[in-house]
């Protein structure tokens, strides 16, 4: 007996945080998604709703006033949001990546107090890692922080800062000092009163249009304690990279989930028209569903892999773990495009048109960005290098 369910429960047995994010996604992000995409405007209603529920500090530990949510909670919440509006979900994911870095690598009093303030004011944080001159090689910086008398100064040419204009703070990478080599980097928290952003160009992109990601010249200064305690290399290996790959993959799974839902509804509508005849596209749906399952299970396992060792810097720094987290990013950014494309073949013209319940144009455009944000070839190049010495599991 085949049981027929309309909607696959992506969020099953989910926590409060995941459920609340799912509700905001369904009620607020979804209805605004097309407009956010068409106008390339910031998804302010989603961010306001998350703020109102204190969800921008979901990852902050309870001891600092936050929710102490787990990465799996957040991952599930982002799947739900990615289903409705990938731009909104990308903004939220990028914010939480910054919060995770602060929470896990900012130990001094200034940064601890800032976390408490972030909980209270529900600050939205953005990221400036990419730089003019280094491209996607975020492990190198051209700019340097200039520290004197306990104060830092920084000027950075950033080709892309998502929602830079809407952020309450920006974490920027830079060389430790003017004399430091390009890979001796720190991460500096740049705060509004001491931060000037000069916009360079516009963000008129194929997808993730609502992330509002033009270039900026960033000029910042502030208390030197706003520089994170750990070197950026450690922050990146132990937190930014794994958390980014997990949270990005979560919202990409959401895009795939929305696509496969449309494909399933399309095939089921066909089946209802001619009971007794299995629609031709049903076979392809079975194929796409297997692909989707690979994706969903890969993500679930990867989140567990990170959570198992999240407090063990040594295991987080192991080559095998880095290779696995890089592979996750490359696989999921490929799978999302595959699932969307298969779903489009299933729904046919109805998905190609921009005005049907089966439209998938926005999903396809958004999904293409996944393999470019930190280029898959660059990531595979890093894995290739690590595999020259990795001994296997």
């Amino acid at each position, binding site marked *: 007996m085949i049981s027929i369910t309309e909607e696959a429960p992506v969020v099953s047995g989910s926590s409060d945080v995941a459920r609340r994010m799912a509700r905001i996604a369904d009620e607020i992000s979804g209805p605004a998604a097309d407009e956010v995409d068409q106008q390339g405007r910031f998804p302010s209603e989603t961010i306001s709703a998350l703020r109102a529920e204190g969800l921008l500090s979901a990852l902050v530990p309870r001891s600092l006033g936050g929710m102490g949510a787990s990465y799996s909670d957040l991952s599930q919440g982002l799947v739900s949001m990615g289903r409705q509006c990938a731009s909104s979900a990308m903004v939220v994911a990028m914010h939480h990546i910054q919060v995770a870095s602060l929470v896990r690598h900012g130990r001094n009093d200034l940064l601890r107090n800032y976390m408490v303030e972030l909980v209270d004011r529900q600050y939205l944080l953005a990221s400036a890692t990419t730089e003019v001159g280094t491209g996607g090689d975020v492990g190198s910086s051209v700019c340097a922080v200039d520290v004197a008398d306990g104060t830092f100064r920084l000027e950075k040419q950033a080709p892309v800062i998502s929602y830079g204009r809407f952020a309450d703070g920006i974490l920027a990478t830079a060389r430790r000092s003017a004399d430091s080599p390009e*890979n001796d980097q720190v991460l500096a928290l740049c705060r509004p009163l001491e931060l000037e952003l000069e916009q360079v160009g516009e963000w008129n992109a194929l997808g993730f249009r609502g992330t509002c990601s033009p270039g900026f010249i960033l000029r910042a200064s502030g208390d030197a304690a706003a520089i994170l305690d750990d070197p950026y290399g450690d922050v990146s290996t132990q937190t930014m990279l794994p958390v980014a790959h997990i949270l990005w993959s979560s919202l990409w799974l959401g895009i795939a989930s929305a696509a496969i839902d449309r494909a399933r509804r399309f095939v089921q509508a066909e089946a209802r028209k001619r009971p007794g005849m299995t629609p031709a596209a049903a076979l392809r749906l079975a194929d796409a569903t297997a692909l989707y399952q690979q994706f969903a299970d890969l993500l679930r396992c990867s989140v567990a892999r990170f959570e198992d060792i999240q407090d063990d810097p040594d295991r987080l720094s192991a080559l*095998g773990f880095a290779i696995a987290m890089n592979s996750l990013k490359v696989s999921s950014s490929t799978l999302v495009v595959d699932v969307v494309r298969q779903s489009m073949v299933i729904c046919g013209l109805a998905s190609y048109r921009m005005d049907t319940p089966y439209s998938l144009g926005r999903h396809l455009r958004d999904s293409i960005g996944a393999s470019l944000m930190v280029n898959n070839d660059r990531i595979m190049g890093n894995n290739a*290098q690590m595999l020259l*010495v990795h*001994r296997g599991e």
Partner: protein
Amino acid sequence: MDETIRDVLTEHGRLAVDAGSIDESTDLFASGMTSHASVNVMLALEDAFDIEFSEKMLRKSTFESIAAIRAGVLEMKDA
């Protein structure tokens, strides 16, 4: 042994400083060695000393200074 280590660093470490004269406790990563370069250093050390670093030695900390590298090589030679 230290001389061989310094030679390997000179050839593969891409340091911003002279590997022949730096202090044995100088942080190599802070001196410009990228993780990319550290993999090449590792490979060259394995070749020079005819050893194979075990998985648990493949950490940034094993390669962070000349002293750390020496300790690592000795540990692998005894293994």
